[in-house]
C-alpha cells in the first residue's frame, strides 16, 4: 500500500519495507516472464505493435529489442530492461538469458525473504556463489585460437548456436558461414562498421550472400560511364546545386535584364570552376552526399567521370572508410587530398533494383552482406539476428575462450555452487542453494519452451554431471533429451556467459537492496 506522508509533496507516494520489496519483485519477475518464452532454439517470437502513428509492426525474438520497446512503469522492471540493454551493448547476445536469470534469482530470493532470511544475507550468499560460479566457468572454458582450423570451427559453431534461436535457424548453416567469413575478414580489428548490411525484399533468406567489397544503393548519373576499372574516387560533402551566399538578406540591385543574365552566367561559371577543380584531382568517380544538379552532372559526363549524388551520411562515412579516402568539402589543393581507390566499380542488379558495386576496395576487410527475404518484417529480424551473431563473433575473436551451450555451463556452475553450499555454515548456504536453482532455471526454460519435460531432462543432466565430472551433456532440444554438446556442435562464447552471470547477479542484488520506493509527484501539465 502506498502511503501519503506529510513530508512529501502532494501526489508523491512512498512504499516501504515489505511492500516496496514486493512491488519490485513483482515487477522484475513479470518482465522476466514476458521474455522467458523467447529463450532457446524453440523460443517463440513476439509482435511488437506500435501504438503511435503508423501502427508499425515489428516481429522479433531478440530480448533487448522487446524490452527496449515496451512500456515499463515499475522501477525494478526498468533495472532489468537496463541490464538487457547493457548486455546488448557489451556482447550483443544473451539479452534474454540475463533477464531470465535475474528474474529467477529474484523469485528465489522472494521465497528466502518469506522464510525470514535477511536480504543482506541473501546478497552475501549470492555474491560468494557468483564468485564460485565464475571461477568454475573460467576453468571449464577452452581456447583454440592457436589453431586457425579449429578456431574457425569454433566460430562457426558459436554462430550457429546464436542463430538457432532466431528466425534464421533453418538457414543457420548458410548464415553462420556468412557471419564467420565477414568477421574473419576484419582480421581482429573488430570494426563492425566495415560490414555493411543491405536489405532487399524478394527472394528467400537462402539467397542472401556475402559480397567482397561495398555495395551502394544509389544511381549513377545519366550519360556517365557505368563501369570503371582502377577507380580513383573523391568522396565529398559539398553543395553541387548552387553555392549560395549565406548572408541573410543579401541581394543585388540592377537596372537591366542583361545584368541579371550576367549574374546568372557568373553563378554558372562559379559552378563550372568548382567542377573543373574537382575533375583536376585526377579522379574518375565522384561521390557526393548532396544533390548534383544537371549542369555539373553534364560536365562530369563530358569528362567521363562517374558522379553519384545523394549518398546519405552513413553511406559516405562508410565509403570513405572502406575506400581509404577522406570526405572533402573544399577543392583548392588537390595534392593534400587523399583519394579513395578501388579496382572496379560497376552496376549490378539485385531483385528489381540497380545498385553500384565497388570491388577490390582499399580496406580489404570491408564486405557487404545482402539480405533477401519475403517481407520487411523478416528482413528486419534477420538483420537483428545477424547483428547478434556478428557481435558475439567479434567478442570471441577478441577473447577466444569458448564454452559449450545448451545449459551445460549452468549445470556445471550449479553443481559447484551446491558443493560450496554444503561446506558453508549458516543461512548463507540457503542463498547459495537458491542461486544454484536459479542457474538451473535456464536449461529448464529452454526445455519448457520446446514443450519438453523439463523436470525429467534437467534431472538427467544433473545425474550425468554428478556421475562424470567431465560430462559434456546438455539439453538437446531437437531430440528432446540430454545430449553431448561437443558432438552437436553447440558452443557459446565465454564472454557472453560470463556477462550473463555477472550482470544477472548484480541486477538482482540492486533490486534486493531496495526497501523504499518514492515516486515523485507527476509534473503538472497545462
Amino acid at each position, binding site marked *: 500500500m502506498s502511503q501519503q506522508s506529510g513530508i512529501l509533496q502532494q501526489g508523491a507516494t512512498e512504499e516501504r519495507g515489505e511492500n516496496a520489496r514486493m512491488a519490485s519483485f513483482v515487477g522484475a519477475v513479470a518482465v522476466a516472464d514476458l521474455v522467458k518464452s523467447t529463450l532457446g532454439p524453440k523460443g*517463440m517470437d513476439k509482435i*511488437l505493435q506500435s501504438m503511435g502513428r503508423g501502427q508499425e509492426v515489428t516481429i522479433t525474438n531478440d530480448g533487448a529489442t522487446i524490452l527496449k520497446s515496451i512500456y515499463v512503469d515499475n522501477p525494478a522492471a526498468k533495472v532489468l530492461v537496463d541490464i538487457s540493454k547493457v548486455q546488448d551493448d557489451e556482447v550483443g547476445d544473451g539479452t534474454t538469458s540475463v533477464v531470465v536469470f535475474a528474474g529467477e534469482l529474484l523469485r528465489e530470493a522472494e521465497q528466502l525473504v518469506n522464510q525470514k532470511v535477511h536480504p543482506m544475507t541473501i546478497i552475501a550468499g549470492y555474491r560468494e556463489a557468483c564468485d564460485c560460479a565464475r571461477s568454475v566457468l573460467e576453468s571449464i572454458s577452452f581456447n583454440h585460437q592457436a589453431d586457425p582450423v579449429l578456431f574457425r570451427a569454433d566460430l562457426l559453431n558459436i554462430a550457429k548456436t546464436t542463430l538457432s534461436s532466431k*528466425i534464421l535457424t*533453418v538457414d543457420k548453416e548458410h548464415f553462420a558461414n556468412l557471419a564467420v567469413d565477414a568477421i574473419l575478414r576484419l582480421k581482429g580489428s573488430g570494426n563492425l562498421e566495415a560490414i555493411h548490411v543491405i536489405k532487399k525484399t524478394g527472394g*528467400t533468406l537462402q539467397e542472401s550472400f556475402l559480397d567482397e567489397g561495398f555495395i551502394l544503393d544509389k544511381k549513377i548519373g545519366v550519360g556517365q560511364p557505368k563501369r570503371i576499372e582502377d577507380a580513383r574516387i573523391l568522396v565529398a560533402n559539398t553543395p553541387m546545386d548552387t553555392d549560395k551566399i549565406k548572408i541573410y538578406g543579401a*541581394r543585388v540591385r540592377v537596372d537591366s535584364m542583361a545584368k541579371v543574365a550576367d549574374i546568372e552566367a557568373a553563378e554558372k561559371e562559379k559552378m563550372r570552376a568548382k567542377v573543373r577543380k574537382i575533375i583536376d584531382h585526377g579522379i574518375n568517380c565522384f561521390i557526393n552526399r548532396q544533390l548534383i544538379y544537371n549542369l555539373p552532372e553534364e560536365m562530369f559526363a563530358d569528362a567521363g567521370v562517374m558522379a553519384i549524388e545523394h549518398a546519405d551520411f552513413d553511406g559516405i562515412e562508410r565509403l570513405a572508410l572502406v575506400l581509404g579516402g577522406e570526405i572533402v568539402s573544399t577543392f583548392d589543393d588537390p595534392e593534400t587530398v587523399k583519394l579513395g581507390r578501388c579496382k572496379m566499380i560497376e552496376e549490378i542488379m539485385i*531483385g528489381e533494383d540497380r545498385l553500384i558495386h565497388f570491388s577490390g576496395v582499399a580496406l580489404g576487410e570491408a564486405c557487404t552482406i545482402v539480405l533477401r527475404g519475403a517481407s520487411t518484417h523478416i528482413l528486419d529480424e534477420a538483420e537483428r539476428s545477424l547483428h547478434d551473431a556478428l557481435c558475439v563473433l567479434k567478442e570471441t575473436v577478441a577473447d577466444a575462450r569458448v564454452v559449450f551451450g545448451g545449459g551445460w555451463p549452468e549445470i556445471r556452475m550449479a553443481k559447484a555452487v551446491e558443493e560450496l553450499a554444503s561446506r558453508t555454515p549458516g543461512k548463507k548456504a540457503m542463498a547459495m542453494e537458491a542461486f544454484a536453482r536459479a542457474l538451473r532455471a535456464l536449461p529448464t526454460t529452454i526445455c519448457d519452451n520446446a514443450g519438453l519435460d523439463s523436470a525429467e531432462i534437467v534431472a538427467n543432466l544433473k545425474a550425468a554431471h554428478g556421475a562424470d565430472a567431465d560430462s559434456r551433456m546438455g539439453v538437446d532440444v531437437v531430440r528432446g533429451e540430454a545430449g553431448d554438446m561437443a558432438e552437436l556442435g553447440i558452443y557459446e562464447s565465454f564472454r557472453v556467459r560470463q556477462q550473463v552471470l555477472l550482470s544477472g547477479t548484480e541486477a538482482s542484488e540492486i533490486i534486493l537492496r531496495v526497501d523504499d520506493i518514492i515516486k515523485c509527484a507527476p509534473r503538472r501539465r497545462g
Partner: protein
Amino acid sequence: MPPKQKNELYKESARKKDVRTSNIEAAKAVADAVRTSLGPRGMDKMVAAPNGEVIITNDGATILQKMTVTQPAAKMLVELSKSQDVVAGDGTTSVVVICGALLKKCQELLEKGVHPTIISDSFSKAAAKACEILESIAIPVNMEDREALIRAANTSLSSKVVSQYSSLLSPMAVDAVLRVMDPARPNMLDLRDIKVVSKVGGTIDDSEMVDGLVFDQKAAKSAGGPTRMEDAKIGLIQFQISPPKTDIENNVIVSDYNQMDRVYKEERNYILSVVKKIKASGCNVLLIQKSILRDAVTDLSLHYLAKAKIMVVRDIERDEIELISKTLGCLPIAHVDNMKPEKLGAAKLVEEVEVGKGRVVKITGIENKGRTATVLLRGSNKMVLEEADRSLHDALCVIRCLVNKRFLIAGGSSPEVQMSMQLAHWSKTLQGMEAFCVRAFAEALEVVPYTLAENAGLNPINIVTELRRMHAAGQKYAGINVKKGTITDMLEENVVQPLLVTTSAVTLATECVRMILKIDDIVPTR
C-alpha cells in the same frame, strides 16, 4: 509474487494460444478475401479508396495493398503478396491462397497438440522438397523460342479482364522484354527500360508496341509551332528558356518608362539569343525537362521557337531523362553553351498523333536505338486501362522470370497436384510428427485446384479427386481446363507458366507461415 504460480502459468499459456489463434484467423480472413479472384474464371474486386477513387482489379497484390488492414498478422500477408510481386510479378493471389491453406492446416495440427516449432521445421523441409519436385517436372525453355514465351504470357493474362486480348498483349510483352534484354548480361534485365504509356480512348485492340518513343505530352503549339518533323535532330535539354533568374535575390530597379521598355527589349533579346544558339546546333526538336525553380519555357520563348521551326515537348520528368537518353542515344544538355550537334539524337520522324480524345508525341525511326521499348496502351475507360497496365506488367514479369530461370512448368494447377501427391508419398518415408506435418502440407497444396475449380463453377471435389487419380496414373501434366470444364493435359493446351512463379509462391508462403507460427504474443509499444 503470491504462491499461486500454477494457476498463473495456466492462464499464461491460454493467452498464448489465443494470440496464435487470432493471428491465424486474421490471416485466413485476408486469404479468403482474395480467394475468389484466382484463376481464369476468377472474379474481380472493386476497391473504393478513401478519396473516392475506384479500382477494379484481379491482381492479388493490388487488392491487398488497397485493403489497409491493421491486424499485424494480416499485414504480413499483404507483405507476402508484395514480395511475390517483386520476385515473380505474378502469382500474387496464389501465394496468399496457399498461405491461407497452410495456416488452416496449422490450426488443425495445433489443436492436436503439435508443438509450433515442429510444424514450422517440417513445413520448411516440405517446402524444400516441393521445390525439388517442381524442378524435376520442369521443362527447359530456350530464349529463342518465342512461341513458348508467348504461351507463358498467355497463361498469366488469361485470368485478367484483358484476357480476350491476350493474342495481342502477349507477343507485345515478349517482344518488349526480348528487345530490352542484353544477351550478354541477361541478369541485368530491368523492366524499367520498358515504357508504358496509357491513353484513354479506343479499345485495347488499338494498343501497339511502338518502335521508338512515345510521350504522353502534347507538342507545345500555343504559338503555332510545328507538330510534325521529319529527319529530326532531337535535343534533350535541362536548362530553361525564360528570363534569367539568379540564385541570389535580385531586384531590377526601373525608374522611368523608357527603362521599362528597355528591360522588356532585353528580355526578348536574351531569349532570342538562346533560341538562336539552339537553332545553330541544328536541333529541330526540343524535349524540355520540367523545372520547379523557374518556368521552363514562357509564351515568348515558345513564340520564338515556333518561328525557328523547332518542335517543343515540355514537362519531361527528371526520372524519365535516363530512359530517353538511352533510347534516343542523345545526352542531356544542361546549359545552352553545350548545345553541340554530337549531343543530339536523330530520328526519321517526330509527330504528334491523335489518339482517341488525346494526343501523344511519337518518335519513330530512331538511329542508334538503345535497348528500350515503348508500349502504347489504349482502353475505353480509365479503370480498364489501369487493369490492362497491371496485367501487362504481370506478363512482362512472367517473361522476366523465364529469362532469369529458364524453365517452364505446366499450368492449370497441375504442378500443385503433382507436388501434393509426391509429398504425400514422401511423407510415408518420414517418422513421427514430421510425417504428419508434411502430410498436412501436401493436403494444403490441393487448395489451388480446389479453388480453381470452384471459381470456374465446376464441382471441386469431383475435379480434385479426378486430378489425383490421373496424376497417380502417371499423367503428371494433367490439369484443369477451365474453358472446357474438364481435365486435360496442360502441355497440349499450351497452358504453361514459369517455374520461378510457383517455387517462389511455395517458399514465400511457407516462410510467412513459419513466421506467424512462431509468434506467441503481441506487445503494445510506444
